[in-house]
């Protein structure tokens, strides 16, 4: 980019970014800025939609009526977040003549990836608790950063989303707290779930940069699409949650995990990044089943979409 001659539009765009101005959907933007946003926001949107599925499995099996109402509300919230984000992505894709149907077909074909954590199994009620407490906790750390995103419609959507995530986290904390205060069997169930989720939680933030940022990352930081690196976000997660996890008498399945008292930096066992790449390429434990469910439901709902369409196509 440095070698190219910058157009007046581009220079003005950067000047706006630098003074903290936010960009709206109809404003001029570099094509690559639009590309990066669509990639990020479409991925976020389908992650919310796919993210409803692991917890949805616990709606009919929740231990009490109250828990069932709460987890139903949470699942509905996640799908609602997907709706908001798909709208934001659609407005960006409009100049390309694309819309939500393209997002869904990209998801089904595997072209569009979704977050690693939603490929994982949820065999016990404790998994539902850990998702609310720690997966949503991790998500809020990433989304909290993105509230400063230079693209205004995305930042506005996140403001609504982050507000609801506050409820999700406490919903998860409440489930985990009840299990931690419960019988030895319930405590063991919670510990098992933590063991299962720990590597996935570390993977959630993406591979560490090791002091060299990719050109993509540098550009996204320059454009204020993001402001922190994967590793900075992961470190925040440790600082926020490790002591809380320990305070419930749980063991984090990483004997090497410790914080430097001087630098406050956490050292930890790297998860298997090859496994991470396999998971996000739909080779995770539940990838095929959940994508199958999602695409079957989508196909089965086709007649509903046709019926409510403005031109009311004949069914």
């Amino acid at each position, binding site marked *: 980019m440095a070698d190219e001659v910058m157009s007046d539009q581009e220079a003005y765009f950067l000047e706006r970014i630098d003074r903290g101005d936010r960009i709206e959907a109809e404003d001029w933007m570099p094509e690559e800025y639009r590309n990066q946003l669509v990639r990020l926001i479409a991925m976020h949107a389908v992650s919310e939609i796919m993210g409803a599925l692991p917890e949805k499995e616990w709606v009919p099996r929740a231990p009490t009526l109250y828990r069932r109402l709460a987890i139903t509300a949470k699942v509905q919230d996640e799908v609602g977040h997907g709706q908001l984000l798909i*709208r934001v992505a659609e407005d960006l894709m409009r100049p390309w003549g694309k819309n939500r149907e393209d997002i869904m077909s990209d998801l089904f074909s595997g072209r569009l990836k979704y977050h690693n954590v939603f490929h994982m199994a949820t065999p016990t009620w404790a998994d539902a608790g850990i998702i609310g407490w720690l997966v949503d906790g991790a998500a809020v750390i990433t989304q909290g950063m993105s509230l400063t995103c230079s693209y205004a419609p995305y930042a506005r959507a996140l403001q609504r989303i982050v507000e609801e995530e506050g409820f999700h986290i406490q919903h998860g904390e409440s489930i985990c707290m009840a299990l931690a205060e419960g019988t030895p069997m319930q405590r063991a169930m919670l510990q098992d779930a933590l063991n299962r989720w720990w590597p996935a939680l570390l993977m959630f933030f993406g591979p560490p940069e090791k002091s060299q940022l990719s050109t993509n990352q540098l550009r996204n930081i320059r454009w204020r699409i993001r402001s922190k690196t994967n590793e900075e976000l992961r470190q925040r997660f440790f600082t926020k949650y490790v002591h809380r996890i320990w305070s419930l008498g749980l063991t984090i399945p990483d004997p090497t995990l410790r914080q430097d008292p001087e630098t406050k930096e956490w050292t930890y066992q790297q998860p298997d990044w090859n496994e991470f790449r396999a998971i996000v390429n739909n080779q995770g434990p539940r990838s095929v089943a959940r994508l199958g469910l999602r695409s079957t439901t989508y196909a089965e709902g086709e007649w509903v979409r046709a019926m409510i369409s403005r031109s009311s196509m004949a069914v």
Partner: protein
Amino acid sequence: MAHLDFDVYEVFAQPDSMSPHVHVFNVLASSPDMALALAEENFFRRESYTNLWVVRRDHIHQLGFKDRDGFQKTVKSYRTTDDYKYLRDKWRYYREHPMRPGGGEASERVDD
């Protein structure tokens, strides 16, 4: 798959009868009724409201980008109460040192 013939509707909500309708977000819908239903489901699962408006996006007219920059106003203190802050001190002073009827220095015997 047939292209779905939907419109974008912008959603405005009025939290209580003394507040203006404020822009909330937008939904994709095939009719105003559907837009209202979606707006309720998407944005008001918890918050309450007095009224909701949905407006088809292509019915909204806005200033172009060049104009939006012009919204940065210069300081106009003569249009606000900012320039009149000194009045508070004056009023306090004259409560303690009232002017004489017809003007001039404050009277010695205030109560008369």
